């Protein structure tokens, strides 16, 4: 085990997989010489050369489509899209290309590529650099979507994503890059599609992913002071969704708070809510409570931004409503 920052854990995953498999290569804006605007790929071009660590033009739409077919033709590209806010440019390639080929071509092709990006608010980056578009990508059949909350999962899931034979969108969060935790040494892999219990509890299940897990854990601390035992489920993978873990948690607590940093309407939290209704309706002792970002553009100024984003206090309040 080693204490590692989330960004370092991602870099370790990239380096290890590039060492292990010469068909793995990286592309993205400012990732090679500069090492990425969040420094995730720092020093990798020096180690692996400019053919395997490529700076690209600002051409997200084409780069995503290229990752799809490059993967089909025998290499394993890892594409960095600098901000999740730029994902709409990638969506044609994901939705009209990557999503369809394995199925409509009757299994003739696989597409082992990873699209890494980072989203999330709280940094004052404004309406075009703060979004969480989990629902946009998780909506697409055939695309796996992961969103780790810890450095250990960041490493283990990225390694698993690179080895996966199908498209994986890897969602990071700008406020997690500098968080640290223990990361297992060596070939640490985390299975895609498996949630984890970040904190065990008995009264209410808080289901979250990415940075919202950190907020959910803070909320659980607050609730514990009131005698409420909250269980925090860290989804880790948004698609395919680990229904079994959700079901087991709610069968225990009978109360659910679903949390997602994306917009509320038609957001990922809505999918969680519907899933809970489908798989554990008879376990519910209260309506599912949903915590998400207000349905407006994310404003710039701190008091405005913090009002629209979910946080620990809002999660705790939702838990209290569920238990009312």
């Amino acid at each position: 085990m080693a204490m590692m920052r989330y960004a370092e854990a991602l870099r370790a995953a990239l380096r290890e997989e590039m060492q292990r498999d010469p068909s793995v290569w990286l592309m993205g804006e400012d990732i090679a010489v500069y090492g990425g605007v969040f420094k995730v790929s720092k020093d990798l071009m020096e180690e692996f050369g400019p053919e395997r660590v490529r700076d690209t033009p600002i051409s997200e739409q084409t780069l995503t489509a290229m990752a799809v077919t490059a993967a089909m033709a025998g290499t394993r590209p890892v594409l960095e899209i600098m901000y999740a806010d730029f994902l709409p440019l990638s969506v044609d390639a994901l939705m009209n290309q990557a999503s369809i080929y394995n199925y409509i071509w009757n299994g003739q092709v696989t597409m082992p590529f990873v699209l890494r990006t980072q989203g999330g608010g709280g940094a004052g980056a404004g309406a075009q650099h703060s979004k969480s578009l989990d629902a946009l990508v998780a909506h697409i059949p055939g695309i796996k979507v992961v969103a780790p909350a810890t450095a250990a999962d960041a490493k283990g899931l990225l390694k698993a994503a690179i080895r996966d034979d199908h498209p994986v969108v890897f969602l990071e969060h700008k406020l997690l890059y500098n968080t640290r935790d223990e990361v297992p040494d060596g070939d640490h892999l985390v299975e895609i599609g498996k949630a984890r219990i970040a904190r065990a509890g008995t009264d209410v299940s808080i289901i979250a992913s990415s940075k919202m897990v950190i907020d959910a854990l803070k909320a659980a601390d607050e609730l514990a002071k009131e005698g409420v035992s909250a269980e925090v489920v860290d989804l880790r993978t948004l698609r395919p969704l680990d229904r079994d873990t959700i079901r087991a948690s709610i069968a225990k607590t009978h109360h659910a708070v679903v949390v997602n940093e994306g917009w509320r309407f038609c957001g990922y939290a809505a999918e969680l809510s519907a899933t809970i209704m489908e798989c554990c309706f008879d376990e519910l002792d209260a309506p599912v409570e949903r915590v998400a970002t207000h349905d407006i553009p994310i404003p710039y100024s701190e008091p405005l931004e913090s009002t629209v984003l979910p946080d620990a206090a809002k999660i705790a309040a939702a838990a209290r409503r569920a238990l009312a």
Partner: protein
Amino acid sequence: MSGEITLAGGAGEYMESATVVSWSAKLGDPVKAGEVVVVVETAKAATEIEAERDGILAEILAPEGAEVGIGAVLGRIADSLPASAPQAVTMVEAAFPAPATLEMPAIVVSGEVGRRISISPLARRLARQAGLDPAGLTGSGPGGRIKSRDVERALRERAPVPAVASAAARPLSSASTDSAAPLVLIHGFGANAAAWNTLRPHLDGGRQVLTAELPGHGRTAALSKPSLDGLAETVLAQIEESGATECDLVGHSLGGAVAAVLSGNLSVRVRSLTLIAPAGLGPEIDGAFLAGFLAARTPEGLQPWLDRLVGDAATLPRGYAQAVLRERERFGVGAAQADVAQTLFPDSTQTIRIAGDLERFSGPLKVLWGRSDRIIPQAHQNELPGHVACHSLEGVGHMPHVEAGALVARLVMQCVRSAAVA
């Protein structure tokens, strides 16, 4: 028009909940469309909600001070007041409806207003399993929604001992990962897992609790061997199934004897024993009670015998006798119980002995007894070896866990905690 007074988005687009500040009309007051009927307050401002139609304020579902979510129904406007005031929903056949009503649909319509009962899915399931009519329950959730706690409270209030069916809706578990060792509760003769409903709220919430069910009791008519060892084997199997490798045991009456027998088992280590008026410490037992309890066919014939269980007959809930009889009828446990009584307690005599088991048990061991016990004499406490802690409860009969739940829970947790320290 529905006549529902709802908390809609009008109170602010991003509002998630609001607090009811005041009702402008009283129940039964005539209201006109467009007239303010209720004021709610959000984090940002107070908002007035107007009546959408003319009529009479027929129901107030969210009283002043209640916190309500978006879309919640705060009250209803109707053409006339319902026959019975809605807050005091009548307890029609509340506790123990006829078996036919067990299959009642999720939506229960009662009263002239045609009001849909607001009940959580879990609460509805628990009520159905326990044979409770949701119409007879008072909801404590937002907008008067019936939650599982309301069902549990109703079960506690109405059927502490041999409750209807299996109130053990969550049979062998409740909570927590704090300890790998569950607290196992073993009920007495003629009762079932629901016997512990009054005790459980007083137990430390962090402990996982398993309520065992003796064969021939509750919903399990099958009885392989009517011996003490046979009963103990079944309970041990239930504990093993939970995956526990150690546990703390609490047993009442016959269940106390079962717990004592289990204390020396090699499969699941028993850390502590708390026995409540246990059987097996002396020959005497109230044979008249056993015979009368088993022979009774009507509530009137059973009630006098049940009164003997407790120090003060008033502590027994109404409807309890009916519940016992219906359980017998529905699950056919009467014959099995007669078989157990005939084998273990023939002719007003206990044939079972647990003194040796207690002698050998080295963990914390408490025996609790009510001074007014009329089923098994408290004098049996005098037979106990010196390492046993004895508690003698004033004004309590054969059912200390029902009659003095808080105290019994405190003593149980003392015993459990001292095992943890040891």
